[in-house]
Structure formats: structure tokens, C-alpha cells
């Protein structure tokens, strides 16, 4: 906690007394003469009387003295008034008198330099800004931020032709799997294909192919899993969920299926999907399910799915169960990745508002720090690095894709950088005057954050709904509204 407040009684190495007026000024109380305003460095206080007990009455006295227009002719009069001393106290007895009167001890004292002061050297920043490549910085920060959003790894495993790829498409959309991966009468997946986007990574397992034994299939799956889970510390690379597919029509549950489900995958992360279930008779469904139940597999991990015209059957249940089983950190990304429950995805976009608010609040606080010492308007561009970081974090939060970043976010950022040129900013926000202080710097950044968040949210919602994504344009009038609203909110 900061041990400083108005009127705190300071003592330096020469046993001189002074009153704390600010982090820059001490009112020194010399033996003779009137109180003198000295800089903290000149006075060099190293001890303070327990500030809570004595500071408040001293500060009150000081203000009373200032307001009373009373004239003090010498130090004796001043100290007597300020410290409420009896007539007979001499300069050397001050320490003892205060100690007795307030029952307080001296404590070590030093003035701290706030970190933000280091940031508020406009000259240094101006030099820095000349070399600042905001586009590159943005891309670097965007890449770094993207890594913070975890995506689940899902292994889709099963015999060749068991409908793995179709299941992936039904669950996660057709654009995830390239169309050449789907064929008829041919093994559709060779080895382990990896399909990924910003939200999910799918490993489409090699199926059991002609000429291959079940043992080889088991070994291969086992070594794939071992490889993925090898680095115990890097759980992001582990397989978080397995969808095990069994072709429903005309097939059966083999020993190899049971071995994989029971002994190779973990019970906590495998779900079984009978695909092409529309072609199964009821009795067939029951008997296949029975085999799994007898092997000790819970009924709520068994699903019958089919990809028929008019929508996929059973996939919604599989999606909900998958969501339930995924570790917490990966759930958000999965909600975004799945293509079955639109309302869940829309809600997920709106839920990002809280996190967005905290990103904006962090940037606003940092901007306030820069403006703690008012900076000339011509140096308002000092705020750009903070805003670049904020926009990159928001872009990553709202899942902007690389191409959207390059096509839309970067030109948008150029516009933002442009308006921070002094003349544009002044034209846009004539309330600024000639300097930007902490409150204004914070308001500009806060308003910019809300404005960008609004744009990115609209973009994410359009993506979810499959509508054309809006262009990021900079609407000066709208930004002004955000700025005014933000300022009004801060003042209240």
C-alpha cells in the first residue's frame, strides 16, 4: 500500500521535518523562516510518522491555513498552527512531542515512481513511433493472441467405409473436409488426415483397409495415440475426444471395435456412433447396442446417426454429449465449430462481450497511464500501440480468419492510425483542446474498443448465420457517438 497522503509528516536524514504535499513537493519546515516548498529529491525524506494517525489533521490544518488567508511570519508560527504545538516546544523537541501526542513511530519512507511514468516520455515515444510498423505488430499480436484460444483435437476412428468423413461433415460442416476426401467404394481416408480450422482440429483415422489385419489396425491406432499423448505437459496436442464410428447397416460389432473402445481409448473420451442408422432395422439396432452394453459401455455414449435428406439424425445428441465430455477449456471453440445448433453458436458470440469488455478495460487503463502526464495532441499517436494490441486481441476473440484480417482488419487499422494524426483527431473530436490527458486518452481508447468490438461482433454473427459478412468501415459519426457515450459514462 502507498504510505503517503497529504500532511504526512516526513523526516529526512538531517532530522528536518516536512509535510507531504504531493509526490513532487514537500513543504519543508526549517528551524527558522517560513515553510519552503522543496522537491522530493531536494528534501530526500527517508522516514515518515505513521501516516494514518497524523496526516489527516495536518492536511486539514494546512488547508485551513491556506483558506484563512492568515499570514505566518516565521516557521514557529506556521508549525505551531499546523502541528498544534504548545508554546514552549522547541525545534529539537518536535519529534518527541509528535511521538507522544499521537502515539506514533517513524517508519521508513520512499516515493515510488509509477510504472506509467516510464511510458510517458513523449519524446522517447515519438522516436519510437517513427519506426513503429503497426501492421506487422498487429499481425504478430494477432498470432500470439490466437494461440490463447484453445481448440479441441477430435479423433474420428473406425473401419473404412464406416462413415467417418460424412459424420465430420454433418457435425462440423462441409467446408472443413475437402470434397476429394469423400468417395464411393474406395477407402476415403489414407493414414491420418488432419482437417483443421480456428476452432477445431480433426484427425480422420485410417480405416482398416484391404489386406490389412485387425491387429495392424489396432497397433497403428495405439501408436498414433501414444505419439499424441507423449508430451504430458502439452495437453493441447492430446486427443480430447474420440468419435468411434461403426457402420450400422449390415455390419457388426467386432472384437477389434471392442478392443479399441474399451482398452485403447479412455472411457472418458470415447463416444460410439452407429452411422447410416436409417438403414438399420430396429432389431438390428437393439442387438448391436446390446453387444456394447454387455461389454460395459454406458448407453449414453452410444448414438445412432444418419445423414438423410432433411437433416442429420442423432448428430445433435452426439454434439451435446461431446460438448459435455470435452474439457472446459475447449468447449467454447467446439461450440463455434459445430454446425448443428445455431442458437448455441449465436449465444457464444454474445457471451464474448464480457471478455471483450475486459480487453477494452485493460487497453483503456494503459491509455490512461500514457495520458497521466498530458501529451500534446500531435503525440496522440502514442496511443496506437495500445490500440493495435486491443484490436488484435478482439480480432482473435471474435475468431477473425487470416483472410478477414488481411482484407478487412488491416485497412481498418490503417484508418485508425490515420485518425490519430493530430489534425484528423482534432477534426473528429473538437472537444480535445490542445493536449490529450489521461481521461481523454482513456475515452478515445475505450470508444475505439467498443466501436471495433461492435464491428467484429457483427462480423462473427454474420459468419454464424451464414450471411454475407459486413465490411469493416470507419464511420466517423458513429465513432463520435461511441466517444460521447463513453465520456458520459465515465463522468457519471
Amino acid at each position, binding site marked *: 500500500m502507498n504510505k503517503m*497522503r497529504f500532511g504526512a509528516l516526513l523526516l529526512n536524514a538531517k532530522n528536518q521535518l516536512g509535510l507531504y504535499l504531493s509526490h513532487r513537493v514537500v513543504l519543508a519546515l526549517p528551524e527558522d523562516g517560513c515553510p519552503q516548498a522543496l522537491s522530493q529529491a531536494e528534501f530526500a525524506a527517508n522516514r515518515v510518522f505513521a501516516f494514518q494517525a497524523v496526516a489527516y489533521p495536518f492536511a486539514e490544518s494546512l488547508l485551513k491555513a491556506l483558506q484563512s488567508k492568515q499570514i505566518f511570519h516565521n516557521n514557529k508560527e506556521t508549525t505551531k498552527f499546523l502541528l498544534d504545538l504548545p508554546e514552549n516546544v522547541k525545534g529539537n523537541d518536535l519529534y518527541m512531542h509528535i511521538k507522544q501526542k499521537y502515539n506514533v513511530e517513524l517508519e521508513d519512507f520512499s516515493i515510488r515512481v509509477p510504472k*506509467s511514468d516510464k511510458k510517458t516520455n513523449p519524446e522517447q515515444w515519438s522516436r519510437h513511433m517513427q519506426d513503429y510498423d503497426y501492421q506487422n505488430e498487429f499481425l504478430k499480436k494477432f498470432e500470439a493472441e490466437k494461440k490463447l484460444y484453445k481448440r479441441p483435437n477430435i479423433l474420428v476412428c473406425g473401419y473404412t467405409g464406416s462413415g467417418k468423413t460424412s459424420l465430420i461433415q454433418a457435425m462440423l460442416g462441409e467446408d472443413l473436409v475437402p470434397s476429394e476426401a469423400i468417395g464411393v467404394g474406395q477407402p476415403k481416408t489414407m493414414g491420418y488426415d488432419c482437417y483443421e480450422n480456428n476452432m477445431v482440429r480433426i484427425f480422420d483415422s485410417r480405416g482398416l483397409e484391404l489386406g490389412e489385419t485387425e491387429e495392424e489396425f489396432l497397433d497403428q491406432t495405439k501408436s498414433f495415440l501414444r505419439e499424441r499423448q507423449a508430451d504430458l505437459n502439452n495437453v493441447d496436442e492430446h486427443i480430447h475426444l474420440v468419435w468411434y464410428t461403426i457402420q450400422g447397416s449390415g455390419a457388426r460389432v467386432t472384437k477389434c471395435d471392442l478392443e479399441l473402445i474399451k482398452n485403447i481409448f479412455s472411457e472418458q473420451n470415447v463416444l460410439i456412433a452407429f452411422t447410416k442408422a436409417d438403414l438399420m432395422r430396429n432389431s438390428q439396432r437393439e442387438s448391436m447396442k446390446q453387444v456394447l452394453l454387455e461389454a460395459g459401455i454406458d448407453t449414453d455414449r452410444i448414438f445412432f446417426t444418419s445423414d438423410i435428406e432433411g437433416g442429420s439424425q442423432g448428430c445433435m445428441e452426439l454434439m451435446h454429449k461431446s460438448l459435455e465430455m470435452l474439457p472446459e477449456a475447449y468447449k467454447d471453440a467446439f461450440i463455434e465449430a459445430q454446425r448443428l445448433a445455431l442458437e448455441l453458436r449465436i449465444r457464444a458470440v454474445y457471451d464474448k462481450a464480457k471478455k471483450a469488455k475486459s480487453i477494452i478495460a*485493460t487497453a483503456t487503463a494503459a491509455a490512461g497511464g500514457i495520458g497521466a502526464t498530458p501529451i500534446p495532441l500531435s503525440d496522440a499517436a502514442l496511443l496506437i500501440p495500445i490500440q493495435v494490441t486491443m484490436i488484435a486481441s478482439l480480432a482473435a476473440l471474435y475468431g477473425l480468419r487470416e483472410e478477414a484480417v488481411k482484407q478487412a482488419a488491416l485497412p481498418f487499422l490503417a484508418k485508425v492510425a490515420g485518425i490519430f494524426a493530430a489534425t484528423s483527431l482534432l477534426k473528429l473530436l473538437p472537444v480535445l483542446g490542445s493536449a490529450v490527458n489521461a481521461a481523454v486518452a482513456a475515452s478515445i481508447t475505450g470508444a475505439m474498443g467498443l466501436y471495433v468490438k461492435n464491428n467484429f461482433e457483427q462480423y462473427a454473427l454474420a459468419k454464424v448465420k451464414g450471411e454475407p459478412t459486413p465490411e469493416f468501415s470507419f464511420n466517423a459519426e458513429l465513432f463520435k457517438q461511441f466517444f460521447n457515450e463513453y465520456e458520459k459514462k465515465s463522468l457519471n
Partner: protein
Amino acid sequence: MSHDLYNSLCQEMLLDLCYRLGLAEEQFCLLSDTLLAAMSIGELEDKQKAIELMAAYSQSLQIIYADFLLLIEGQSLLFPPVPALWQWNEPRAEEIFSATAEKLYSIAEAMECKLRIKLAEKEPRT
């Protein structure tokens, strides 16, 4: 003492309050980091530290507010109580802790705003 001297001392004190709010903001940043860690990782040590930091931040603001009232008219303010350790076990623990931190931060923001306005009154923009 002259009106000018009174004004410049008051201005100095207003700037000092801004400075102290700046220091308190560093405390808030540390508090936010720790709260985030406590919420995401859930270690008892982080939870305890978050409470300590929140109490320290609240106390700093209370001292600043007491000095603030010497210079700017205002009412005495009821600071939100710092939640206790057991409240981490409440079903809405994250909301409770975030709301308290946010409330404290908004008090700091409001103080800073008023200080800036007061400073601007004393030194009219050119």
C-alpha cells in the same frame, strides 16, 4: 496566503491524487491478474492472494478518497466489502469477486474523472 498560492497548492494536491490513483491502478492490474489465475486455475494460494490484493487495493482507494474529500466536495462512500475466502466456494463466486473488483475500479475511475475535471477548471484549456 494568496489566492494564487492556494490555487497552486491545491493543483499540486490534485495532481498527487491522480498520481496515487496511478499507483493504485498498478495494484488493480496485479489484482486482475491474480483474480484471473484464481478463477481459471483455482489454486487456494491464488484465491488467498486475490483477497489480500483486493483488500490492499480497497484500502488504498479509501485513503485516496479521504484525501479527495479534502479538495472536492463529496459524500462519504460505502466501499464494497472484500469477499471472504469461503466465498470462493459460493456457486457464483466468480461473479462476486469480479463484481467487487469492478466496483472498486469504477470508484477509482469516477474519482479520476472528477479530479481531471477539477484540474481542467483550474487550468483552462487554450
